[in-house]
């Protein structure tokens, strides 16, 4: 179905574009001398659009990369593997060997590659199956712990806590001073999970904790050990009370958290060095470990920034296999890792890579030397259960820790239930970007979103759509895989035609931002209007906007929905074109699309939204 309908669409698109713009104009890609090798790369986060994607495209100019952003879990890949639609290169943040075992044969075995040989062997053990195969390689380790506003503490004559006792004392003192001692975005599952585990690393790394984890990770159990985990929930419950965490925290975003930290409203937050930089708190933040009973029992929480794997199809051609391995080597090499986030404050797994540490992690070195870096237990079940239970604990849904413990175990069991299809997508759409018309998949999603929002126009980056849209049955969870996993805002505003033009030129030119354009496949999608864009050596330049073939009136005002990261790009860009008033959509992008499909509606038909020309044309 998908194969049949795409050409029809493309043909219709070609005819429409020809009618609108006249025939005979060359578009990008037409008449190119040599066909580039196409490599699809699924990013776990749009974070990688800031620098990482650009680095890859620059490093491999002969490759036509097709980027898109997926969810941050391996579930997406399992879903795609079942439909034999995996991308060429896979990246994922949340990783557990048990989560990926079901589609291990769809991935290249990297164990015999020299790339694997460049890693510290001890790090590879958790990626190695008993038969010696290994599909995934980790990028550098991010340190995820507690950021302390050292100045604020000093202001209140408080020392940075070194053990749990001191931590509680500081919290109490801060509360008394009217300062929130600790805050985090409990809307996100990983926050819930990391705080839950981080506060009890001592228990989880004890002999019992280690032995239970091995049993859990090897699939021998999916239930928490009372001996190990009940104290964890007890500590969490204690911490919620201690830190004054309430229902309002469940709605706050990470940006809100950092904003409070920045504004000295909060003394401690969960965070990373990269986040500190991103939210401009690096100067006042110091990262401390999750405190144990003693200073020597404190641990920093760590996990790989992401893992990389490759589609086994690459092995069909030695040339292709080499290209994929070269790209992966670049992704995991010194330069590649430096393009992840801030490129610092991370621990390299690769023997050949040395990354700098900033002052934020100045206290961390003794913990590294003593091997007190706790690698979070990051199975998908653990994420979802942690979010549910921790949020329940914050909301007071459980009378005590034991009830929370039991609830957690229950949550772990629920996942064993089989799939229940909730929707059916009749027509599949290719994500492939065509200079005449753009990406059908991205257009279908963006048009659907605009329909749901009821605005005249909508813009959003194509990578917000997670690759090809496959026809068939979907569970509710699988519907969420259609769109990127990270939270992305929908900003509703009004713009004149001129402001819209300026806005698009700004986002096309944006660099190092969340949502920067990397290449054709990551261009912005328009819904409700069409764009004529010229590609130059300096990037992309908007030439004209049309609506139904008529040039957009620059002074007319239109209702526009902007899909993007508010804090890391959109707010600034909108402001630069004079749009300061906007509202956020009550529903999230992912939810709107999911809900539309759950109600039985289909995705809106794609429309040819862009004509991309080369500079010389």
């Amino acid at each position, binding site marked *: 179905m998908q194969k049949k309908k795409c050409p029809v669409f493309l043909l219709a698109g070609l005819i429409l574009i020809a009618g609108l713009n006249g025939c005979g104009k060359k578009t990008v890609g037409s008449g190119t001398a040599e066909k580039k090798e196409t490599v699809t790369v699924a990013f776990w986060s749009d974070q990688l659009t800031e620098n990482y994607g650009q680095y890859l495209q620059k490093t491999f100019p002969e490759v036509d990369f097709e980027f898109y952003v997926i969810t941050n879990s391996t579930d997406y890949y399992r879903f795609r593997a079942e439909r034999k639609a995996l991308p060429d290169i896979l990246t994922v943040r949340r990783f557990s060997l048990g989560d990926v075992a079901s589609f291990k044969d769809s991935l290249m075995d990297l164990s015999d590659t020299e790339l694997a040989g460049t890693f510290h*062997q001890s790090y590879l053990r*958790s990626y190695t199956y008993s038969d*010696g195969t290994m599909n995934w390689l980790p990028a550098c380790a991010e340190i995820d712990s507690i950021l302390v506003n050292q100045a604020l503490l000093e202001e209140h004559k408080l020392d940075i806590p070194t053990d749990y006792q001191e931590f509680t004392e500081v919290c109490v003192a801060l509360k008394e001073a009217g300062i929130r001692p600790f805050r985090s975005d409990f809307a996100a599952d990983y926050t819930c999970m990391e705080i839950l585990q981080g506060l009890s690393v001592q228990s989880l790394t004890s*002999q019992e904790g280690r032995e239970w984890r091995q049993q859990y990770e090897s699939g021998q159990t999916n239930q928490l050990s009372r001996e190990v985990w009940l104290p964890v929930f007890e500590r969490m419950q204690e911490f919620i009370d201690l830190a004054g965490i309430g229902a309002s925290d469940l709605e706050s975003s990470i940006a809100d958290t950092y904003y409070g930290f920045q504004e000295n409203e909060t003394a401690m937050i969960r965070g990373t060095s990269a986040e500190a930089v991103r939210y401009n708190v690096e100067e006042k933040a110091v990262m401390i470990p999750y405190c144990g009973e003693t200073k020597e029992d404190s641990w920093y929480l760590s996990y790989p920034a992401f893992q990389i794997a490759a589609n086994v199809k690459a092995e069909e051609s030695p040339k292709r296999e080499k290209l994929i391995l070269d790209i992966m080597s670049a992704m995991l090499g010194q330069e590649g890792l430096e393009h992840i986030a801030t490129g610092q404050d991370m621990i390299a797994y690769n023997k050949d890579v040395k990354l700098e540490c900033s002052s934020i992690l100045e206290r961390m070195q003794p913990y590294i030397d003593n*091997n007190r870096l706790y690698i979070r237990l990051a199975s998908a079940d653990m994420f979802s259960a942690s979010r549910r239970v921790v949020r329940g604990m914050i909301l007071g849904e459980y009378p005590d820790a034991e009830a929370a413990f039991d609830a957690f175990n229950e949550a772990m069991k629920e996942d064993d239930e089989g799939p229940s299809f909730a929707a059916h997508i009749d027509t599949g759409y290719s994500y492939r970007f065509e200079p005449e018309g753009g990406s059908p998949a991205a257009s279908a999603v963006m048009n659907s979103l605009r329909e749901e929002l009821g605005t005249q126009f909508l813009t959003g980056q194509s990578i917000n759509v997670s690759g090809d849209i496959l026809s068939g049955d979907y569970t509710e969870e699988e519907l969420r895989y259609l769109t990127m996993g990270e939270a992305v805002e929908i900003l509703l505003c009004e713009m004149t035609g001129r402001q819209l033009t300026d806005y698009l030129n700004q986002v096309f030119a944006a660099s190092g931002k969340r949502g920067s354009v990397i290449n054709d496949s990551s261009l912005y999608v328009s819904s409700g209007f069409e764009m004529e864009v010229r590609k130059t050596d300096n990037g992309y330049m908007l030439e004209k906007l049309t609506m139904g073939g008529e040039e957009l009136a620059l002074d007319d005002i239109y209702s526009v929905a902007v899909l993007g990261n508010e804090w890391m790009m959109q707010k600034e860009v909108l402001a630069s074109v004079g749009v300061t008033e906007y509202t956020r959509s009550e529903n999230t992008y992912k939810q709107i699309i999911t809900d539309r499909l759950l109600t039985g509606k289909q995705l809106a038909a794609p429309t040819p939204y862009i004509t991309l020309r080369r500079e010389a044309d």
Partner: protein
Amino acid sequence: MKTERKKYHKVFPAVLAVSLLLFLMVGGIYFTEYLRARIFEERTTQLNEITSQVRVNLDNVLDSHWNYLTAAVNVLKQQEFDTAEEGVGFVKELESLLEIENYSSRLVLLDRQGNCYDAEGKHGVWSDIDRISGGEKRYTFITDSQIYESSYWAFVQKLDVPLVIREEPDTCFTHVLLLKDVYTLAEYYDSAAYGSQNETYILKSNGTRMHDDISEDNTIQSYNVLKVLEEMEGQAYPDIRGALKENNIISTNFTYNGIEYFYCLTSLAEYDTLLLFLIPADYVASGTVKMVGAVIRMLLFLLMSLLFMLMLVVISIVRQQSSIRLYRQEQENLRRQEELNAKLEESNALLARSKETAEQAFRIAEEANRAKSSFLSNMSHDIRTPMNAVVGFAALLARDADRPDKVREYTRKITSSSQHLLGLINDILDISKIEAGKTVLNLSDESMVDLIENIDSIIRPQMKAKGHVFEVLNSGLKHEQVVMDKLRLNQILLNLLSNAVKYTPEGGCVTFTIQELKQHARKLAHFRFIVQDNGYGMSREYVKKIFQVFTREEDSVTNKIQGTGLGMAITKNLLDLMGGKIQVESEKGKGSTFTVDLELQISDQAVDQDFWQKKGITRLLTVDDEEVICQNIQLTMEGTGVQVDYVLEGEKAVELVKQSEEEGQPYHVVLLDWKMPGMDGVETARRIRKEASESVPILVLTSYDWPEIEEQAKAAGVDAFLSKPFFLTSFRQKMDVIRGDEQEAKTDNEQSVLEGMHILVAEDNEINAEILGELLDMSGASCEICENGRLAVEAFEKSVHGQYDLILMDVQMPVMNGYEATRTIRDLGHPLALTIPIIAMTANAFAEDIRDALEAGMNAHVAKPIDMAVLEQTVRAVLETQSEQEY
């Protein structure tokens, strides 16, 4: 067969050489493979042995460390510590006691959190803490500890009961570690046998590296070493771990980056560990390889020697074959040369024959030339002789004109010489015409009887003149009327008969026989004419060339006889023209016989078969002493309805006639031979008339001139004479004459037919005209001479009816020739234009000339010079013909 044998000789050495080479190659390959397999076996065996030894050593070492650790754990179990520091001190004491440091080993205690306590104090969490968290009691592996800067074999014993620190209740020791520096065990991995060139990989049983020991020197730098090995080129085990399960130790080779390696892999199953040795092939069983290499070199040398010898043998065979081939080629060349020589000889012979033929031709030409010269000489002589006579006697005639006897004598001799000269000229002209291929036959219905009688009349006087007995015989002549060129056939037979006259001494005997043989075709009568004489005869050599032109036999006798040497050639050529044949039989001094065979078309003119019945003649009596003649007559008369009886004597004839008269069945005709023994013909006739019948017609059959006896015979009662041979036509004509006595009498008494005629003569030659005038005058005719055709035409045109009885027309004349003048006359409106007889009178005496004359409208043709007898005969025939046509 020869080609196949040749092929065989060529192919056999090649096949032999190729077979031997193949054998050596296959053998070499087999042997090389065999040696390679043996070397491989030797190498792997050596490797296995050495690796087994290493494994045993390593096992022992590991076991001994376990023994150490067990001892330490046993001691530890009995300890109680108040603080962790005491634990550290205990470790220190124990290491000292066990002298562990001497073995580059150390003892470590792990607490519940994984912190390390060694002789130096407390350290951080052991990096491999997760590896001992599987619930097992014992672990053995290699660790890359961050705490201790090296790689160690770790022997980990989990304590059955954690050792609680009394004063630190949250702290308890759970594990005891014995760490042994990996590199101090290298002595057990390296083998002097390989010159320490082996690489040792310590792997987990799944093939991944046990510890982080990858260096640039490693051949395999990947994480999963076994998988890399499985993908190596030439490696024998696609599933190494599977193979290892079956054989505790495996060895094989592979090629990597162009270098051959051997590896040996063995399992230390107890420790979940694989031990891999990787050695460049050059260092494996190098002594054996060197020895085998030496053997191979030796064998190669032997093989090369063998090959060299083989090549020599092959070369020798090839050369031998080549020699044989060369020899055979030489033989073949010789054979071909012989063939060529034979052909050359044949060619030479052919050339010789050609030369001979050419010489013969030359001789013939020369002979012809000579004959021609001789002929010219003869001609000169032959022409001059009669001319001399003519000129001489003419001169004498002038001198003796007043002497009539001399005049007659000279005139007779001049006439004779002129006739001879005329014959000579005719022959020359004839042969010229024949040789030029211009002679055509002038065919017409003619009577053979007339022909024979004409010949007889011409030749008989000559026979008589030379005193020859001349006999004409007829045998079975049935078809007297045939289509022929009468003139040419006449010429042929006269030639033969003239020769018989000339070349037979006086008083000889010449026989002319006419036979009709059995017909070959229904419409063709087959005649045979035989001229036989008893004259001089000819030599055999001359007989062979008698028909060649210009030939005459050089003979003292015959040379004196006038002859052109053309007569027989003319005869032969004319016969060829007629489709006839001529044969000659002759013997010198005995005479010659010429036999002519000729087939002539039987005339379509119907013979009056009822002639005899109309005349009332049904019985005939023939009387001749020669029975053959009687029988011939009987044969000739078959089919006429006339019964022919014959008797051989006159006496019997008289009786028979008498008897027939008496019986009332009288003979209607009696034929009597003149000369018979006893009673001759005349006497027999007289007797018949007297005793038997006065009315029966009696004819005398004779070959002699009957005028001598004509009077006597008629007196005896003979009615007529019939010349021999007997011809039916002549007989019938005579019977006609006898039946019409008046006409017979008139004919007998008739004068010259020309007498009283006035003749118009066209003749441009004055002499000829004068001669003709005189001759006509002699015959009682007058003439008017015109100098050309035109004048003749005009004269005739102007003439009155009956002014001219005849026109004699020369042919070659100025103004208007004879043919044209004749056509003009025939076209004139003169009453006699179509009927007046015109007779050609020309020197153009050939058949075609006659034909042309007739076609021009003339009635007949006479040749110049004018023979008055011929002229009269011709005129008479013309007139008779016209008379018959009128009636």
